[in-house]
């Protein structure tokens, strides 16, 4: 299992489009993906779950991945956060 803390830096937060991109990327990996925020935990592959995080710009989240491709998955997801969910960031 790998864990990492991230801060949401894109101005609109994890809104509809960033959330769609996040779950799409996460679905590309076999690992289970959870996001923790203030004691609340959601499945990072569930778009509705991700939206209920209501993660605004500045929100701090903890990402948790576990599975055979957890390291690659974490890297891909961290890159998304770093690039503010720009689809062309990769």
């Amino acid at each position, binding site marked *: 299992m790998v864990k990492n803390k991230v801060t949401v830096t894109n101005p*609109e*937060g994890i*809104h*509809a*489009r960033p*959330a*769609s991109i996040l*779950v*799409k990327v996460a*679905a*590309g*990996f*076999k690992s289970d993906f959870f996001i923790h925020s203030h004691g609340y935990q959601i*499945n990072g*592959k*569930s*778009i*509705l*779950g991700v*939206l*209920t995080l*209501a993660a*605004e710009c500045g929100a701090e989240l903890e990402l948790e991945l576990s599975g055979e491709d957890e390291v690659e998955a974490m890297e891909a997801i961290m890159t998304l956060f770093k690039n503010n969910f720009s*689809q*062309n960031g990769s």
Partner: protein
Amino acid sequence: MDNGQPLPEKLHDTVLRGTASAPGIAYGPAFIYNPADLILSDDVIKQTDIREEQARVDSAIRVVELEIRKIEQLSKETDLDDLSAAILEFQRSILKDPDLIGSINQNIRSEFMPADRAVYQAFRYYIDRLKAIPNAYFRERIPDIRDIRDRMIRSIQRKQLLIKIDDESIVVCRDLSPGDIILFARKKVKAIVSEQGGLTSHASIIANSMGIPFVIGVDGLLGNVEADDIVVVHGTDGYVVLNPSQERISEINLQIEAEKIVESARQQIAEEPAKTACGREFIIQANVELESELDRVQLYRAEGIGLLRTEAYFLDSDEHESSSNGHAERDQRTFLERAASVCGEHNLTVRLYDVGGDKLPNYAKEEANPFLGWRGIRILLDKPALMKSQLELIFSSVGTHSCKLSVMVPMITDANEVKQSRKIFEEVLADYPNLAGKVKFGIMIEVPSAALLADKLAPLVDFFSIGTNDLTQYTLAADRTNRHVQKLYNQMHPSVWRLISQTCDAAHQFNIPVSVCGELAGKPVAAALLIGLGVDRLSMSASAIPAVKEFLNKHTFEALSQAAFKISEATTLEEVDSVLSTFLGT
């Protein structure tokens, strides 16, 4: 056409202004459609019904996904703004949400809820959570989420609803989803009017393409109409009349007559043989994806169907969930049979499933680059049982009809794929002795490698069909849904035209026909120039046929060829534009 002028009210008339959303005029008894009052089944299901209820949910997901895809496709032909594109993508992801789907199935399996209530309750959890969020920005997505929920529920309940709507009805509603319009088009309602106007732009695109008069944003509508009241909907000028007077009705009848003349002129053009000013003939066919589009094939005198999409009925033969497959197979069979019958003696070209790996149940891993990934023929060859079962379904459904049947395979890149798929095709065909030698086998030319190898592939097949949408994106390496590169994506790019021209030359060298079934074929100028480039057949949305024919009738083949040649010789898109304006100026 809202000019703010009050319309004269006749005796006992009530005129309500709205906004014109799809042209046409009609009147008839009101059918009040209020999707806000979804009535959920409150019974408890039996253990033995669990499978059936889960299959209804699967089928609803498939239908709603198809609707979204259809909207995306129609919107591309108009010009989708960024926000709508993001919302459609968001809604599509909801349909794939593993937690949501898990919770729906859980509700059915453990709580014995019927499908519609299971869906409602699963969504409720998320909607309640979102409602509690202080940031309005996140709450704004609630209507889009409810929309998907209601469309799934309505799709589950659809059969009951269909019984209630009369063919002659005017649908009166508060708001409408695009899926509703597809449903109403199937029932051939005469017109639609809605009280709200905001979120209906997709519905409007569909109403236009289906030819249903549609007025939106009519304040006070529902408060003033009772079921079966006579309502006039003026979709061209954007108003409705409630309880019209005799005088009004006669006036409207005259206007309807006038519109009929315009429409019949369009249909008359459609009746004319498809030929250029100098008399060169060619074939115009229709693209069909939804059952409701089949009626328009004959209306606009399409000479058969050049592209019948079957993805909506995709069923994986590895999946032995017999109840859900049984439904999908029956649906596909009905669709194929109806398509065959509207084609009459003409040609019906069925494209085999063109799906990506995400459609397969045991292939959960989403690809980083699906357009360059496992899709189309690549999947069909890896899963020959899937390809065989679809071919069997096609041969057995269409075989007894009098249309000429063609089958084509998507995403071909080289001769090896052609040989392998043709072998499977011949093997299955051998079981249908009545079809021996009668079914044509063709390939889609939509990957540049196939266009470049066209002279090697032509001897192996009976026809080529060029898919310009994919050919353009692969040639120019530009995804048109990405706004940063949208400008690069242009189906009239000289490089794309060279590939098309090369494909036509190769085909004619081996005496096989070439058709184009991309969007390009439905735009009059581009379509005409494709004929000039050597394309034999065009396949397009049926409603585009009159305009394309009219344009072709006015130009000689020679003029078209010259302009087409100049386009393939251009070096920039600006030069293409200047060739076009010179051509149109003459």
